[in-house]
């Protein structure tokens, strides 16, 4: 967080609530929630279609929940999103994909194939 020095020399921290209020309601209340729902829906359809829960589902689901927390969660969620895109662009596979490959087997599976 950005620090500023007050006139008496004591450092003052900018509160997260200040950042939260600075972000418009249109973003914090609508777009972020819709994006969260969208991500949740994608995970749900993936799980239903594949008949299994993989590590990437848990990580991405966890990130949706974390990203729902104002300011700090947005930072963590945003950083993960950027890191995921960068990993996908560089290696051709997302962070979740790499973890899935490393674990090799799904965490839960209910298919008898």
């Amino acid at each position, binding site marked *: 967080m950005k620090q500023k020095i007050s006139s008496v020399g004591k450092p003052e921290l900018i509160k997260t609530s200040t950042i939260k209020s600075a972000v418009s*309601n249109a973003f914090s*209340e*609508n777009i972020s*929630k*819709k994006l*969260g*729902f*969208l991500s*949740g*829906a*994608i995970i*749900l*359809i*993936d*799980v*239903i*279609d*594949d*008949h299994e829960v993989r590590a990437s589902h848990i990580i991405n689901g966890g990130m949706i929940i974390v990203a729902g927390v104002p300011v700090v969660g947005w930072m963590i969620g945003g950083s993960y999103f950027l890191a995921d895109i960068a990993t996908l662009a560089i290696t051709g596979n997302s962070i979740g994909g790499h973890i899935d490959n490393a674990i090799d087997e799904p965490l*839960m599976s*209910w*298919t*008898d*194939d």
Partner: protein
Amino acid sequence: MIKPFDYAFYSLYKLYLDTEKEEPSNIESASYSISIFKLSFILGIGILTGAFYHGSLSEHLGISKDLFKVLGVVALFLYAALDKKSYKKRLPEIVKKYKNHPRNKWFKSWMLVFVGLGFIFIPIIIVKSIQGSI
């Protein structure tokens, strides 16, 4: 008769009213949360029904997996949007119905987290135990 999802919506709406100022976004927040809650219910149904089918749903429908995902997400998004509209319209009726409901004495909003997790894990346990006994 109590409608479980309506009651869940009421308890979430009440939670937002108690913790934040009374404003229109409380309905949005409550309906968004209930949509996530419903997603877990749909997932549970999907797990139960999926256990009796071989192969993926997209294969059964004869469409690609990516198209299935897009169609599914659009359908869920439309459902959530219609649901929000419905809750906005029915809010006074829901509040009136559940404001003095006896269940309010012991039911707390945080319990919905465990109900949501139950929607997902109980079908998995059922399916696993059925597959284990066969």
